[in-house]
């Protein structure tokens, strides 16, 4: 509560005043709390890295930091006979990348059209998108499973246990909110830009492609990053659809592997977890701003 007072008074009062004993005590307590919270935040992450570097098969009686860290778990992970980890990893990257490209393409076009063109049913359509968007795909997974089973009897490559089906599901899963985000962004771009291009004889497609799309870069990056993270990190849809070991994504593979062999392959599994987290962390660090923007605007945590 004092902090709140501090919050507003500090605007006016200079910080260069000598620190009073009362303030010292408060700082001490606050730092204590900060350290406790930081431990809560950081320990799981530190622990998984430490366990993955621990060559011992069991952690019982082991120290938090391994005495002789080594990459032996990582070597074993990539050459394991029980599970094709490298294949899972590549699958995940492939699925997430293709999903991202498709989503960005479809939502940019749709968002642009909804912002710029006036046509009958436009309002109804946007309302429908908004309503449809509130039911996450996970709710309909029984129906989706059954539908893909049926589709697969006619077109094999889009049935169960295929990456194509997964990619299409991911691409459409969060399309609604993304289209509305793009639409809102395009709304903020002056329509005079389009109009002058059209007057100069550009087709609507050329106008979109060469004039508006380049200005849309921030929202496109936001949607791309969010889509990639969501598709890469998804567990349940991939778990329901994929069956054969070589088709699994890294998330499904890790979960099955952790459930089955945690006792035996403790170190290897933690190594797998660390490796699987790396692509997202690599994307997240430089593009954090876009993630936060997107999540704030969309009010959804993916």
């Amino acid at each position: 509560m004092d902090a709140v007072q501090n919050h507003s008074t500090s605007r006016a009062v200079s910080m260069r005043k000598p620190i009073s004993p009362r303030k010292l005590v408060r700082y001490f307590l606050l730092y204590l709390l900060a350290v406790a919270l930081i431990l809560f935040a950081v320990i799981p992450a530190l622990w998984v890295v430490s366990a993955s570097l621990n060559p011992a098969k069991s952690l019982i009686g082991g120290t938090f930091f391994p005495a002789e860290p080594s990459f032996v778990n990582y070597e074993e992970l990539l050459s394991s006979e029980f599970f094709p980890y490298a294949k899972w990893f590549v699958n995940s990257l492939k699925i997430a990348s293709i999903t991202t490209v498709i989503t960005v393409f479809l939502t940019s076009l749709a968002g642009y059209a909804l912002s710029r063109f006036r046509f009958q049913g436009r309002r109804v359509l946007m309302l429908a998108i908004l309503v449809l968007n509130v039911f996450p795909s996970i709710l309909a997974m029984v129906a989706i499973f059954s539908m893909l089973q049926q589709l697969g009897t006619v077109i094999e490559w889009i049935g169960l246990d295929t990456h194509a089906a997964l990619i299409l599901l991911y691409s459409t899963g969060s399309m609604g909110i993304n289209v509305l985000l793009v639409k809102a962004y395009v709304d903020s771009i002056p329509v005079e830009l389009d109009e002058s291009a059209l007057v100069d004889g550009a087709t609507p497609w050329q106008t979109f492609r060469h004039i508006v799309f380049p200005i849309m870069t921030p929202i496109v990056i936001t949607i791309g990053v969010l889509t990639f993270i969501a598709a890469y990190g998804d567990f349940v849809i991939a778990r329901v659809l994929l069956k054969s070991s070589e088709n699994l994504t890294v998330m499904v593979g890790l979960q099955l592997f952790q459930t089955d062999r945690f006792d035996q392959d403790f170190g290897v599994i933690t190594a797998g977890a660390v490796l699987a987290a790396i692509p997202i962390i690599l994307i997240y660090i430089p593009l954090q701003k876009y993630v936060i923007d997107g999540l704030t605007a969309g009010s959804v945590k993916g």
Partner: protein
Amino acid sequence: MNKIAIVIPTRSYLINLAIVGAILIGAMWLITSLFAQGLVPLGSALSAITVFIALIYLRRKFTPLRWLGIGLALAMLFTLYPLFYTLYISVTNMGSGHLMAKQQAINRLESELYLPESGATYSWTAFQSADGASYVLWLIDADGTGYLARPGSPLEAVTPGTGIVGAADENNIPLTLEGYERLPLNRTVPIITQLSAIDFGEAPNTVRVSSLREAAALQPKYRYDAAQDAIIDQETGEIYRPVEGTFTSESGEELPIGYIDYIGARHFQNFLGNEGFREPLLAMLMWNITFAFCSVFFSFCVGLIVTILFENLPGKRVIRALLIIPWPIPVLISILIWRSMLNPDLGFVAPILESIFGSSPDWFSNVGWTRLAVVMVNVWLSYPYFYVITAGAIRSIPGEIYDAALVDGASGWGKFYHVTLPLLLRIMMPLLIASFTFNFNNFNVIYIFNFGLPPMPNTIVPMGYSDILISFVYRLAFVTSNVTNYGLAAAITVLLFLLVAGLVIIQLRFTKALKETA
């Protein structure tokens, strides 16, 4: 005002026509194939989508919709159709034993063969083609007549020494066959399973290898009689009539392959009317609500406390950077880490707690501790998000409001309670409700952490104490493999739809999203 006239040149219209034409032909083929198998709901949905695509790409009036066409078509198939299909499944008996459309089930039954007692048996000799890929049988029937049997074409009675068939040995078996090699017994033994899977001859008169020496003419076991809508067993003459998706005989005997059939609201009556079901389901719903509420409440509180307390602390950037470390870690991995850390045998938490308190809670089989653990893990996952959002929201509160509060004589706590908190709640309410909805269906935390366990005792279908509705649905449909009940799972999903829809209506009252669509 931002109306843009669209002029489409004829050339692009023609290209459109060609592409759309190709897509339509493909779609027609797909739809025909689906209907042929009796998959009426999916076939109808695809028909509607196809008509929609054809309309918007061929009628100039709908030109602006072309920009949305592919996306809308995909969304209709993968998002809209599954919602309606869930409603349909919820009033059917779909589940193990009833996974096919009626026509598919009939086809499957009609493809079953049996060996009639009066049927012809043959002795056989295998010939293998030069490339090793295909086989031909030489069959000799009881009268000693030889036949050449290839997969997919009728049996031919051939005299050895004519055509491609070489001269016979003393057993009337040709020594040679052009393009093929005669396999001696020691080479047929290793491939006997392969051979016995091949139907030689043309349906319905096929011959299959039944033992090392004999091959037999098989006949279809079941025949569907459309006139009386019944399956007739050709072997026994028994008549099986459809009863709610199962072909059943007079004496009550059922065929193992059934089909998806309408059974009305029985699933709903089952869990709303049956006390043995309703009670645990209500308990699950209560826990589901508690879980979602606690997750949002504590994540929001941690985020808020951290924001306010550390606002002016020197070094707050470092603190902030460290505190949002959980955020970028993929959810599944975070949960697996927690699951491993809390593992009583291998994790490091148990030894520490034991050395301090003398015992360590059982995070995986005690109801209370499991529930506490999933909430704790979920708070760990989501507070960084709330932290970042809250910090942003507080920054957006104008300073003048605080100055006004100061004039009114508000103290530190009073200012927080009367100014900051109400404003913050108003800004964040849509987000808090959205987050509640999300956590209401937060399958990942529940299922990955402990599969919804520990199990509730004596329930009709498997239920767990930490299960929420969506993880229960998942287990009903995909985990309890021998008794999967998609119909019941879909019925509970319909209940979830209603709950989510209710939550969203509340959320929309707090949000401007609706107005933004103007």
